[in-house]
């Protein structure tokens, strides 16, 4: 998985609790992304980062926040988890200067269940 780890891999939590997912990369890629994957929707971008402390919203950012204090780490926080946030979350990295192509490399995913 291209030097990308996600933790935890599985989590069960209750509605209203905060949850933080971590993505760690060893590739020194500039861009990092958080997606959620749901049946019938494919992969939808939540937030992305284009450098340390530089982040921006994706198409489904409501209820989520992110932080990137180091190149290698990108955190996704569900401020107050809801059942609609039950999903599989994928982190991805990209660096267009590598091999002159814009391939996103994905982590193994985190399966989150909000009860």
């Amino acid at each position, binding site marked *: 998985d291209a030097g990308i780890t996600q933790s935890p891999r599985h989590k069960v939590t209750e509605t209203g609790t905060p949850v933080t997912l971590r993505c760690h990369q060893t590739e020194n890629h500039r861009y990092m992304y958080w997606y959620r994957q749901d049946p019938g929707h494919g992969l939808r971008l939540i937030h992305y980062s284009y450098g340390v402390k530089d982040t921006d919203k994706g198409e489904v950012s409501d209820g989520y926040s992110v932080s990137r204090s180091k190149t290698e780490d990108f955190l996704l926080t569900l401020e107050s988890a809801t059942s609609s946030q039950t999903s599989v979350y994928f982190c991805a990295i990209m660096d267009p200067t590598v091999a002159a*192509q814009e391939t*996103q490399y*994905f982590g193994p995913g985190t399966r989150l269940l909000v009860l």
Partner: protein
Amino acid sequence: QQQVKQSPQSLIVQKGGISIINCAYENTAFDYFPWYQQFPGKGPALLIAIRPDVSEKKEGRFTISFNKSAKQFSLHIMDSQPGDSATYFCAASITNTGNQFYFGTGTSLTVIP
């Protein structure tokens, strides 16, 4: 609004047959069209990609056909094998933006032995 429309949602093919998955887009600014393959419990992985300056790209049994005027592209899997059973996603992006990256909704392919 779905930026990239993918069909079919699911596909069942006999071993040795040809699997065809289609995608369509509207934004003519897209200039990079990758296909990703995802096995259960894993993250998507790049399979093959094409840029709009060519109409076809082949890598082994996998071929992308690209029709710029129709704003469509498709993945062809020749001699489909049971090991090809996976979910396939098309995607489209605008290079050098870092964030204009959109995925189709996925196609679940089952290859029957």
